[in-house]
């Protein structure tokens, strides 16, 4: 019998080492797995885990969720496309103090690099970023480029992760998932790319009750699912 349902994130993540890489879903207010992040911070504190690499589109807002995770100072590096926002003060001060490394990636390259990891692709050529500062490695050397059919492309490598924390909507014990509206964002790609994907859901259905035509992430990409109380989507 396959049963991926667990009661808490500490049951889902029983082994984690310093230096682990962690994908966190979400874009803006939509799809951020706040409940999972809270539990994850507890694990980091309990086991004194340090030097994490976090992969998310942004770098946290306000004090909760991803910002709270950064505030632990257990994150060495963040890979994201848009760290800056009006209330990204936690990241801003860490960055300015030199306490966190930033790898800035154009959003579509970020998403495709995550997908590539989940799809078994070794590397891919993308036109995005060609001729810009973001077609350089962190040491300032240029990334490999190639002309293909008269157009210039940059070689980009996959982003793998040890863990992915994502927010879905409904699920079943096989780990099949649906999402809600634009909260889907990075969830399906991150679920594929991590060695251990943990998804939060607001409802767990019996096998067969999720319409197979509507399942967005098939359970093969999901390791654990956790039921969390539904929060209002009427507020940010």
């Amino acid at each position, binding site marked *: 019998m396959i049963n991926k349902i667990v009661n808490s994130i500490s049951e889902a993540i029983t082994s984690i080492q310093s230096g682990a890489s962690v994908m966190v879903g979400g*874009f*803006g*207010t*939509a*799809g951020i797995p706040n409940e999972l992040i809270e539990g994850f911070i507890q694990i980091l504190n309990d086991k004194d885990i340090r030097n994490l690499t976090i992969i998310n*589109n942004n770098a946290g807002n306000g004090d909760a969720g991803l910002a709270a995770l950064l505030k632990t100072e257990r994150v060495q590096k963040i890979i994201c*496309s*848009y*760290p*800056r*926002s009006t209330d990204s003060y936690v*990241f*801003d001060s860490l*960055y*300015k103090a030199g306490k966190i490394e*930033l790898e*800035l*990636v*154009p*959003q*579509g*390259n970020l*998403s*495709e690099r*995550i*997908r590539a990891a989940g799809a078994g692709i070794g590397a891919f050529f*993308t*036109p*995005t*970023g*060609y*001729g*810009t*500062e*973001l077609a350089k490695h962190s040491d300032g050397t240029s990334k490999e480029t190639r002309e293909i059919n008269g157009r210039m492309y940059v070689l980009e490598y996959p982003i793998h992760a040890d863990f992915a924390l994502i927010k879905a909507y409904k699920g079943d014990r096989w780990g099949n998932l649906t*999402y*809600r*509206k*634009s*909260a*889907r*964002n*990075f*969830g*399906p*790609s991150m679920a594929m790319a991590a060695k251990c994907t943990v998804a939060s859901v607001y409802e767990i259905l019996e096998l067969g009750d999720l319409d197979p035509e509507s399942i*967005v992430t098939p359970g093969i990409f999901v390791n654990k699912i956790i039921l969390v109380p539904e929060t209002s*989507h*009427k*507020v*940010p």
Partner: protein
Amino acid sequence: MNYKTRTKDAIAALIAKDIPAGAYVNLGIGMPVMVANHIPAESEVCLHSENGILGMGPTPKKGEEDYDLINAGKQPVTLLAGGSYFHHTDSFAMMRAGHLDICVLGAFQVSTHGDLANWHTGLPEDIPAVGGAMDLAIGAKQTWVMMDLLTKSGQSKIVAQCTYPLTGLGCVKRVYTDHATFECSKDGISVIDTVEGLSIAELEGITGISLKSKN
């Protein structure tokens, strides 16, 4: 000066008039969002939002906001009948591979041969952030820029060479500004129209760029 520059709203209306019915369009964060107010519903222009929405509708009524349904600027929006949701990687496939007909972006600078700079000031004290700007700039069938022609200190934002960090090379097709509308190509820049009373010679004086009329 015996001419009046266009308001932002007037620039938005001009752009909206040039978008064909049924086009798939992405409107960048900031000024370009205003274009949506001028697109008639019956034209069925289909708006794309890079976080995973096609058929994006207007801002919801007060009290009806749903924070699982937001645009790229993280503001609540609505979905029109016929609209759809999809994940980020599919969304950027739409952008990168030319499935979108038009994207409209803001800019710090556009070069005469269509290079775009709109993501980073390059100042060491500014934290860089790029989002989907680079994918949009090079991916849509046509990239249009909506901006004021001059900076607050009166410098032309149309330049021979961008001095700000680039977003994309040779990707801008048209530039809609408060003074005039331009077309960029490999062969340089031409003027599609100017506001009433502004001559091309005067425009050359303002921009410091040698210009020719497209017509």
